[in-house]
């Protein structure tokens, strides 16, 4: 849904989104990695089963909840990327133990 316009941000960080590796820049948030992986939604609603994607990108709407390194319901837009990070879309409710 979003594409990078140039390579100004150097230094690539490897992040895995839904099992697929993408390269992003240090300082990018996880949501940029999700966009770079070609996904336009971050979660499946536990209420309606619909796909939901980020809306505000500034930490207000809580739509961009994903599982990061085993911890569910993290705001992708508020989390900076780290080398080796594993991101999985939030499908419905989390379990008690992950």
């Amino acid at each position: 849904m979003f594409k990078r316009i140039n390579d100004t941000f150097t230094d690539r960080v490897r992040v895995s989104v839904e099992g697929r590796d993408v390269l992003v820049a240090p300082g990018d948030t996880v949501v940029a990695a999700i966009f770079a992986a070609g996904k336009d939604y971050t979660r499946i609603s536990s209420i309606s089963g619909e796909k939901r994607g980020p809306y505000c990108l500034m930490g207000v709407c809580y739509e961009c909840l994903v599982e990061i390194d085993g911890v569910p319901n993290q705001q992708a837009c508020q989390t900076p990327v780290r080398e080796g990070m594993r991101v999985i879309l939030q499908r419905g409710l989390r379990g008690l133990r992950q």
Partner: protein
Amino acid sequence: MKNTYDLIVIGAGPAGLAAALEAVQYDLSVVVLDDQTGPGGQIFRAIERIPAVDRRLMEKAYLRGKVLAERFRDSTAEYLPGASVWQLEPDRIVSCSVNGSSRQIKGKTILIATGAMERPVPIPGWTLPGVMGAAAADVILKSSNMVPAGRIVLAGSGPFLYLVAGRLAAAGSNIEAILDTMPRANYLDAIPYLPRALFAWESLLKGLVMFWKVWRFKIPVYRNAKEIQARGRDHVESVLVESGGRLREIQIDGLLLHEGVIPNTQLTRQIECEHEWDPIQYYWKPVTDAWGFCRVEGVAVAGDTAGIGGAEAAEMAGSLVALEAARRAGAISKTARDLAAKPFQKSRARVLSVRPFLDHLYRPVSYVRVPRDDTIVCRCEEITAGQIRDAVTRGGVGPNQIKSQTRCGMGPCQGRMCGTVLSEIIADSLKIRMPEVGYYTVRAPIKPVPLGEVAEMEIFH
């Protein structure tokens, strides 16, 4: 890091940074708590990361942020990035979570400078992936050099809509159209405020430049746009709009909505500041005195959180709070404070003289403030305006009752996206005024915090 400070600043936008810089001049101990990883807030987002070559995409005003951030880094003010403030207690104890653990610190003065949020724009289909706020596109352009792919439409009103359209077009986005919802009658309403607005002529000039940039890219603008709806299955595929008497459907890959910005009052509500309803721009803002202080002892609000005024006014307001904080800490006398305040007060008044004009010109339209029955109002719990109206019919007279009955406002966003709309629907249904309707009772934690962190946190004493 210490346990107590003369001034704790929450938010690292222009108000917060200016307050910190002013306060250290008087040798106050200052810490700025920022939920972002670098200073600048939203308006100067990622200012430290933007390399020189990208400046051609940005305006001069944005670069002011670079100066502020540099001076802030050089100052003696402490900076705590990645800090999520989840509670403020009446004796000015702040609970915040950093790097997986929560701590409490106390301030002689607290400055809430948490800025603004984009007004949520509930239209049918707004929960489809691919529908976002215009500010979202701006944020990811600044922080990650990304633009929306495919055919994009922007819808709403206000100079920021055009600003973003111009920026995205300059960055290579395909902007299919702008759907401008501003009713023509607003021009007439705003004219009486134009003479006063001329005192802040640079703001007006900036606005004209914004429109010129959009015109330059030959983006079609549909005026008096009404009945906007997003359509699609798993993703937004088209947008419907009525304009010039015609109903159109435009095939798109992304829709960006904007109907102005409103104060982010989650923390001011939690600490129980008094709030008043702005009847022109339809938003809640905290009630503050001339120095920015609210009715809770030692708690001040500055910048857009106190009422939308823009970055320059925010800096002035932050500086004024710092002066009063200095007086409270015994660092300057009342007379010295008043003297030092004069240039800030003068500057702020001048910059704000454009507001009545802009506020009247860009009053948000009623169908996004009081949406029709089939529109989702509470995105988190997926509650529609129709369900809310049913609850009102059943006897719910206020937002807290409706929340209990429908779960509207009980989701992760804690009512940030639905609160104002809910109150407006109640006011509209019962034909009572917004101040009478009120707003949700907001309680801590204002951001989710792991139970384990709460259990292990050392309580301030």
